[in-house]
């Protein structure tokens, strides 16, 4: 059964314990915090930062300010664009849910980074032997029947780990039970073919202003990788057609030239 995490952002208090737990479990170096115009810290995901909380201050129509804390991490798509893009198959979707990366295969072409619609894979730019890094959905913890580190550490129950169909049911139950509390759509249910991260938010991602920051809403419900696979499915036929045409035209044009030359010869003989 495919696992997922339900992220109920209305329960998040922005404590960032998930960020810390993620760093501890994955043995990632701590970064230097700096002041900026936002409370979000660090500012971006990186090869050293697999998850972070985005802080958003949005005023509702009645003029009241509301905090929104949105956890950002790999969506672990059902049909990941990165896995379709990778030329050596270093990225694969496990039936259990995680999209995992094979350090030993990667050639460092960075096509996964270009292809990912959620801008998730990050590169170890500072290294002379760089690899791609991203959230692993704690595949190593799941293998020994532990929940992901972020879920285990979350103090408010924002993160709920479980089987995806059940989590979806729970998400829709919550929306139905408290319609005023939630935007009536589960981000990740259908987008880009569905993901293993399901987001419940108070307002839409457009309103949160995050469509350019990794939570695109214009992706449609078909997986991005499908376009590449459709192209690849045509390749053998194109190869055969071009090859056949080339050989056929070669002999046809050669014969035509010969006939033409022969006719000219005859004309000369006649004359």
């Amino acid at each position, binding site marked *: 059964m495919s696992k997922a995490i339900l992220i109920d952002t209305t329960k998040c208090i922005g404590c960032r314990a998930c960020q810390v737990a993620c760093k501890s479990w994955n043995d990632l170096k701590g970064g230097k915090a700096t002041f900026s115009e936002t409370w979000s810290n660090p500012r971006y995901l990186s090869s050293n930062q697999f998850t972070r909380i985005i802080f958003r201050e949005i005023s509702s129509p009645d003029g009241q300010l509301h905090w929104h804390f949105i956890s950002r991490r790999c969506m672990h798509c059902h049909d990941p664009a990165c896995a379709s893009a990778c030329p050596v198959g270093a990225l694969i979707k496990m039936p259990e849910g995680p999209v995992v990366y094979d350090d030993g295969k990667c*050639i460092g072409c960075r096509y996964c980074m270009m292809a990912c619609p959620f801008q998730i894979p990050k*590169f*170890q*730019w500072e290294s002379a032997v760089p690899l791609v890094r991203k959230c692993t959905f704690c595949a190593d913890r799941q293998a020994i029947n532990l929940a992901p580190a972020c879920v285990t550490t979350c103090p408010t129950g924002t993160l709920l780990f479980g089987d995806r169909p059940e989590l979806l049911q729970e998400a829709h139950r919550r929306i139905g039970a408290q319609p005023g509390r939630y935007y009536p759509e589960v981000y990740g249910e259908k987008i880009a073919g569905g993901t293993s991260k399901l987001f419940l938010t108070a307002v839409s991602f457009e309103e949160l202003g995050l469509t350019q920051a990794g939570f695109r809403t214009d992706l449609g419900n078909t997986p991005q990788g499908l*376009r590449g696979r459709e*192209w690849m499915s045509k390749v053998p036929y194109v*190869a055969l057609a071009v090859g056949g045409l080339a050989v056929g035209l070669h002999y046809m044009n050669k014969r035509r030239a010969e006939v033409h030359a022969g006719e000219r010869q005859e004309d000369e003989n006649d004359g």
Partner: protein
Amino acid sequence: MAEKIEKWYPGEGKLTTGWAIIYVILVLGFVSACARLFLGLGATTNLSDAYPWGLWVSFDILAGVALAGGGFTMAAAIYIFNLKKFEPLLRPAKLSAFLGYMMFVVGLFFDLGQPWRIWHPLVMWNPHSVLFEVSWCVMLYTTVLSLDLFIIGLERYGKQSWIKFFRDIYLVLVVAGIMLSTLHQSSLGALFLLMPQKMSDLWASGAIGPLFFTSAVIGGMSVVTLESLISARVYKRKQELGILSDLGKGLGLVLLVYFAMKVTDLYARGVTVWVWDKAHFFFFVELFGTVALPALLLCFKEVRQSAKGLYWAAGLAAFGVVLNRFNVSLTSYGGYRQISYFPSFIEIIITLAMVALGIVIFDLGMKYLPIYKSELTVEH
């Protein structure tokens, strides 16, 4: 042409300014390449998580391969469409195509995070990946081009029995070359099918594969034209204006087809064209300045029959292909990224050094290989 030259540097007579610049760039390039390999991509390039692909992908890989389209275009014209009059242009086209693909391979070597794993796609397969197909096609086609050059080399050393063997199988090489080129030239565009939302509407087209293929034909034909004109001047040979003006007619035709394809595609997708911003500026330059303008120029007989006219038309067309590749892979993301990208000094130097190396190898090829000899041409 084949006599031994007792000098450590190529070129005629004393060391000219041009060659001096080339050597300086090569030395700088060598140092930069070492720095890139030992210090890593982050330290030596301006690439980042926001711009994983930069100058090397845009120029060395995308533009380099498109400009090297002359090899398969000329082979198709001569062997498939039986246009024998273009035969004198075939060998220089192959030499420059080979250099274009070497540039791809070397450029990719420096661009990859783990260059020593460049062989991985050979044994680690992902048949779903467009890039997997591109890497196989490029590997095979580079092999075909190397064989082509090898045959030319055999002629220089008069190995007749070997040449006969290759003549017998030559059609296989030609057809393989055309097939592989069609596939990877279009698939390089198809790489961008996966990320239409990240790109500007101006270039995020479902028809990007056929568009890339057509513009590669343009790139190939215009480079063959420029190459013939420039080498005639440099190596004091007679200009082949008669053939080139015929080729110019073909180039004009392909440019018109490409322009029609672009316009149809934009119209069919309902793209807002008449807006003024940075992306649109580059788009207008590309579509009108480097596709429509050379097509228009080549409509005139006077342009087609003068070296200067052909220089301009082919130069604009070739520049247009390069600009298109930059637009697709860099400009297109301008509206989407918060950060902008400009290549670092080392990125630029390594690219320039590869161009310089290409010039040196081309010069050696012109001196030591029967590139413009017609009496030994492989016949069919």
